[in-house]
């Protein structure tokens, strides 16, 4: 019986204007998405490969010089691997830096012993809009197409599914038969789901077809797995709006009223809530102390310098003692500065996380977070990249210390040229940075969002059921 009702709904929808319009709209959007991806993805990949090549050359040239040079200059720019599923979720990647920098010369000092600052890990920030006079638009990714357009279409398919029958009196007719009400509800739900899925599936297939024809894009097995998960999430998200439509449609006497309620709810939930909530949460605290970052950094450095200067210009100290003090000064300075950068990063991240958490009240935000997680883009991905970078920096430092310890001629005073190994290092031995994506980690970060989305669906579904069971026809 369920299938009978579903089939009837489906046939009803297939002939309707909304089906045709939805198909055209989705096809147009998905094609645009594919074309833009094909245009932009090669440059992204090229940039990444250039960055990696530069990083490797840099390591090689310093390694050929000496261990000291390598340990002082550091690994250089570490690049984030671009995701092949960028077309699913752009994830605000234009506002996230594509790299973290391991090393930049901050100061140098003449005299005895000559010193140079050691590398630190720091995080450049990008402000792509600073001189960008082009108009500001949302990226047409799957997150936009599904999150905004498909959810609207889902509402347009269900807003009248019960109220129209009630208006026409056919609902009374149908319930006069011995059909349980939940069967009617589920039948209608399935019918609407299939009707929405048809144009969407068509659009997705064409999108993937266009994308996979390009020679630049390689969709491997893992990527297809991710795409499968993304489609499942899409299904869940679409269900959410279908059920919402059914719920309001069941409660309200007239379809026009039902549509007004649904549209206003949609506009509030989807268009306004994510950004308003983010603005509220993001603005709740100022992210930085009153004293500017560079001033704080200078202050810390000055304190350390004064402490060290007393050793450096003290003629009573012997040469090894001076070397040791210099080494301590250099390494301490690097550690302090790195900590400062990390603290700032942590503050910024926690502010963004606050905003993202509060924005989760809106289903479209949950959906977009999920999409980002599984597409390997966006903020969570950036945090993963930063983790990778940090563990690599650790590895790199351990490597330099170990290599220095292995050299018998070295004085093992880390931080000064005279105190460290002067031998060249074999480039193969240096640990290489490889940015990786792991599906299990993505599941971990996505779990809360996934559960929240399911919760929304279940609550609305039971709401719709109760509303429909108790309503008088």
């Amino acid at each position: 019986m369920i299938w009978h009702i579903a089939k009837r709904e489906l046939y009803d929808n297939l002939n309707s204007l909304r089906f045709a319009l939805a198909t055209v709209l989705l096809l147009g959007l998905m094609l645009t998405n594919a074309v833009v991806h094909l245009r932009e993805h090669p440059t992204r990949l090229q940039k990444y490969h250039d960055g990696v090549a530069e990083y490797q050359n840099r390591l090689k040239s310093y390694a050929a010089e000496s261990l000291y040079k390598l340990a002082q200059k550091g690994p250089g720019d570490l690049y984030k691997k671009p995701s092949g599923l960028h077309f699913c979720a752009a994830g605000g990647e234009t506002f996230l830096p594509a790299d973290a920098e391991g090393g930049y010369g901050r100061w140098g000092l003449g005299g005895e012993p000559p010193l140079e600052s050691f590398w630190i890990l720091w995080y450049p920030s990008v402000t792509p809009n600073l001189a960008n006079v082009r108009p500001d638009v949302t990226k047409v990714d799957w997150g936009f197409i599904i999150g905004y357009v498909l959810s609207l279409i889902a509402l347009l398919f269900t807003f009248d599914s019960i109220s129209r029958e009630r208006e026409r009196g056919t609902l009374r007719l149908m319930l006069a038969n011995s059909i349980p009400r939940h069967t009617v509800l589920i039948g209608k739900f399935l019918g609407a789901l299939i009707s929405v899925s048809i144009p969407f599936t068509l659009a997705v297939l064409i999108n993937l077809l266009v994308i996979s024809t390009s020679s630049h894009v390689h969709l491997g097995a893992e990527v297809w797995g991710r795409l499968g998960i993304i489609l499942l999430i899409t299904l869940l998200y679409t269900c959410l709006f279908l059920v919402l439509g059914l719920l309001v449609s069941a409660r309200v006497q007239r379809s026009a009223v039902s549509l007004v309620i649904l549209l206003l709810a949609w506009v509030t939930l989807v268009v306004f809530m994510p950004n308003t909530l983010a603005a509220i949460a993001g603005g709740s605290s100022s992210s930085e102390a009153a004293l500017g970052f560079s001033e704080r950094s200078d202050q810390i450095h000055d304190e350390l310098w004064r402490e060290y200067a007393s050793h450096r210009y003290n003629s009573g100290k012997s040469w090894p003692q001076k070397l040791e003090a210099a080494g301590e000064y250099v390494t301490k300075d690097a550690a302090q500065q790195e900590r400062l950068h990390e603290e700032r990063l942590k503050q910024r991240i926690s502010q963004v996380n606050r905003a993202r958490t509060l924005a989760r009240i809106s289903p479209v935000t949950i959906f977009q977070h999920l999409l980002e997680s599984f597409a390997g883009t966006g903020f969570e991905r950036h945090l993963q990249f930063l983790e990778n970078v940090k563990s690599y920096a650790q590895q790199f430092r351990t490597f330099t210390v170990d290599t220095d310890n292995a050299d018998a001629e070295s004085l093992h005073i880390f931080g000064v040229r005279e105190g460290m190994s002067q031998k060249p290092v074999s480039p193969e031995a240096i640990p290489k940075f490889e940015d990786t994506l792991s599906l299990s980690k993505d599941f971990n970060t996505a779990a809360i969002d996934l559960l929240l989305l399911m919760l929304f669906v279940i609550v609305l579904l039971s709401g719709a059921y109760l509303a429909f069971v108790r309503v008088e026809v």
Partner: protein
Amino acid sequence: MFKTLIGRELLNNLMTFRFAAAVFIMLLLVVANTVVLIEDYDRRLAGYNTAVKTHQRQLHAKKTYSGGTSKLVVARPPNPLSIFNVGFDKRLGNEVSVSHTLVPSLWDARMHGSDNPFMDMFASIDIVFIFEVILSLLALIFAYDTLAGEYEQGTLRLVLTHSVRRGHILLAKYISAMLCLLVPLLMSLLLAMILLTTSSVISLNADDFLRIGGVIWASVAYLSVFYLIGMLISGMARRTSTALMLSMFVWGFLVLVYPNMILAVSPQPKAPQTRTASAFNQIEQMWEEFDRERKHFLATDAFPGEEWDFGIKGWGGLYAYSWDNPSKLLYTYESAMEFRDLGEQYATEIPHTQNYFRFLGPRVINTAERTWLIRKPALEDIFIHPANVERIWLKLSPAGLYDAATQAWVGTDVLGIRDFFHAARQHRQRVINYFHDKKVFGSQQWFTTDEGAADWGSLPQFSFQRLDVNTNAKRALPDVCILLMINIVLFVIIFLIFIKSEV
């Protein structure tokens, strides 16, 4: 009769659920967002004030004029009307150096203050965006059954049996629906205005109220366009359900899909690579010529040797470097010398140094200004023109027109932001004139404190005033006029369709 018609339509519209819902949701969204926006403005204003103080402190810490030129920075205050349409106010750089070595432009600006760059990921909402989305939706919800409903119910036939002109019916429907739609618009705006005027951080002047009036005008025109689109669909579709579906898809397309999709689809304005290269080449040559002259001067002056520091060593520092950024056509030569009390030891060198800087200062200014003559049109071609083409594409949707018109009214469009850089250039000129008047370039204060520290106190002060409301009106008028024209065209089409239609 006309009055009766309007009265009937008004009652029809006012006593509906959709009217109540419209008022409620508009008030809710506008009030909630205004509160958030005022807070945001407050933060930006605080950031601006801190930046101004920091610039002052850093400038006064410099004891010589040459050391201070790099600290001559002016900041752009946030626009209080950005609450209505944020436009480019938050995006583009808000502080720029007005040193004599470079004519400042939008592309040399920096962002001051304690901003978290990650937060740019979240789009910012303003009142105009709320109107853009909700008003258009409401207009269509009000319009979809205005003709089709009457066709279906047969009431139109009834009305037309009386001696009523069809034009009057249309006009009555239009006027009454617009009156109803104005209620949520004006009520929410009034509430926003109450919040604005009672908040202590925002002070509005008479011009600002005129600008807000312009925003309201544009909003009404926008609202009316969407109402007429709905009426047109309603008249053509004749069935309410069809009209409703069509209206919703038209809305989704015009407001949601088109503005975001078109720039990806439209032909990409090509970045003129050769234009960039040739302009930068010219600029580079001018600076190289300057450098030759500089070296020639050092070689031929009375002091032996070609070193520009004349062998002076003391407590302080000095630097001279040129740097460039070809993609922004940026090239400057910066040099500064800052010594504390050189004393008798350098009595012979100091006059030579003075001579050198007396020569160098005007040369740098001259070269900077000559390169600006090349840089300005090149920047226009490379950045502004492609962006303008994209803006025209966006204006094919009423939402884009509305956005552009309100941006122009409140002064957060690119032109409004560029006014600031124009003011910064004027300020730079004043600073240079001041330097010339005080003969700073050839003075000892330029590089040493032997004759006392640099006097920053009497430097001309910078304060940016937005241009008057006439300028805003001039910039907004084309877009508002196009909106009004669309209104008239739509109304004529509806009229023709309605006159010819059979009931």
